């Protein structure tokens, strides 16, 4: 029999031999492979997981493999947005084959007993980790958010490894589950005040690109960052780079001081971010040359506060002709936004609030040859569209409602 470097309990060995069914066996096989790769000593329990489901073929293969093998999640396991094929079918014909993949992916996650949150910010409502909980959270904003803002412990999981961890209720003990590996690696001196989430997004984009991989420790931030600002920093730094964790001593929970963040050691690497660097990042993102055809917001999913802000800006206004305007959010947030009257104000202007949907899905095929505008550099990065302009929400609304094209 094959030997594993990761020590397994008798019960885990039994699962690996197929004693709990084929689906559960496959899930543990993947975790053991990861444990072997990182020389993990053992498996440790996790309390929750978030699988960054995507509605693509690789995703479908694995979740169906587990579902068909009878696997069920042992701990709460939330899911990322895919898209509501029925909803989009009425608007523009999404390619049939892809719609079928999306439908099957969503069904399979239901069969394994996942929380059908279809949200990329589950840490706000549907699946909230606690301080120092060991969890397995995939998704670019989710991994750094739960590590840094909440102080839970997760590695930079793939959808499949997070799902496998949710099925088994365990993950190999390696990486960011071990305190020493959570030590800061680079000091980032922020020498300019940041106004809003858009500017935090630019900072994140710069830090991710500059550091690539590591644990930045940010200083110079004077004001308590908002939830939205932290989300944008997380999403962008983990897209332009692979930032799974960061510190803002004084504001994030795990280290009260810079010294604590570096666990008493001196930082070797230092970078400085001034107004100039943020301006350069902004300019680098301005690749769109043509007139804006559509606005696409909610990457990551808009929070209730952001939807309220959009509703205020769109209130008593009308989108100009041939302009489409989309806000993606979770079903939970959309329900509250409806209750509060924000959705009505947005729809009266001619814009849409859509739940369960990611900006990187084939349902947006109608815009393939069009130019969009978004407040998220991450949305622009996916290149599902001809071109995407990046600007603040206020500028997106201004472009969408003014009489003539920009």
């Amino acid at each position, binding site marked *: 029999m094959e030997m594993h470097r990761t020590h397994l309990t008798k019960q885990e060995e039994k699962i690996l031999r197929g004693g709990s069914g084929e689906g559960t066996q496959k899930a543990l096989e993947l975790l053991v*492979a990861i444990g*072997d*790769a990182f020389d993990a000593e053992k498996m440790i329990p996790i309390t929750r997981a978030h699988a960054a489901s995507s509605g693509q*073929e*690789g995703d479908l293969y694995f979740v169906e493999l587990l579902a068909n093998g009878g696997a069920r999640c042992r701990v709460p396991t939330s899911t990322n947005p895919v898209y509501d094929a029925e909803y989009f079918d009425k608007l523009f014909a999404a390619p049939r084959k892809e719609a079928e993949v999306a439908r099957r992916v969503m069904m399979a996650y239901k069969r394994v007993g996942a929380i059908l949150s279809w949200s990329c910010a589950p840490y706000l409502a549907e699946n909230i980790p606690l301080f120092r909980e060991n969890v397995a959270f995939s998704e670019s904003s989710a991994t750094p958010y739960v590590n840094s803002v909440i102080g839970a412990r997760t590695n930079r*999981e793939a*959808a*499949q*490894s997070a799902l496998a961890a949710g099925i088994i209720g365990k993950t190999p003990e390696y990486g960011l589950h071990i305190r020493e590996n959570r030590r800061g690696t680079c000091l980032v001196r922020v020498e300019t005040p940041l106004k809003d989430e858009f500017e935090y997004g630019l900072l994140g984009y710069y830090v991710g690109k500059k550091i690539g991989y590591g644990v930045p420790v940010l200083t110079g931030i004077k004001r308590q960052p908002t939830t939205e600002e932290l989300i944008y920093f997380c999403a962008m730094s983990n*897209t332009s780079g692979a930032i799974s964790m960061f510190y803002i001593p004084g504001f994030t929970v795990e280290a009260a001081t810079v010294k604590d963040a570096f666990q008493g050691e001196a930082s070797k690497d230092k970078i400085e971010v001034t107004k100039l660097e943020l301006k350069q990042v902004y300019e680098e993102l301005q690749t769109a040359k043509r007139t804006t055809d559509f606005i696409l917001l909610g990457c990551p999913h808009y929070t209730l506060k952001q939807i309220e802000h959009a509703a205020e800006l769109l209130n008593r206004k009308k989108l100009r002709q041939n302009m489409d305007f989309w806000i993606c959010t979770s079903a939970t947030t959309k329900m509250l936004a409806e209750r509060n009257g924000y959705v009505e104000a947005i729809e009266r202007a001619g814009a849409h609030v859509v739940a369960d949907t990611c900006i990187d899905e084939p349902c947006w095929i109608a815009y393939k040859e069009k130019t969009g505008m978004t407040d998220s550099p991450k949305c622009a990065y996916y290149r599902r569209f001809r071109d995407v302009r990046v600007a603040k929400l206020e500028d997106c609304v201004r472009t969408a409602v003014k009489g003539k094209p920009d």
Partner: protein
Amino acid sequence: MKSHQIVLKCHRIINGCAEGEALVSHEPVCFYLTDPKTGIVKEKNHELAGRSVRDMVLVFPSGKASSVVQIDGLYKLASNNAAPKAMIVKDVETVLVVSAFIARVPLVDKLERDPFEIIRNGDLVKVDAEEGTVIISRR
């Protein structure tokens, strides 16, 4: 002609045993940026641009790009029988492990000598993850 053979110890990540011609990339590889039918690297300015990873023993420093696209990329190659036979890497991350697991491509790291110094394009390489060995034959 007698071939020259080197046997190196390695660290198993994804089990399996396969043999093929070596294809060395000094740059990280994103499987999403290959043609899913032919395995030809489409990424502009990439060292392997225009070459196919199909049936090769791919030697590269690490994977790159978001988890979703990387896994989907290697999975599609494998479904079309266009994936590498085996992979030898220097720095492993979770996403690459998951990709190789799903595509069932043997994956090893921690060769006892630097693979970029020892392995050249065209060498015949046998990766035996189970035994923890890489055998390099040069004709």
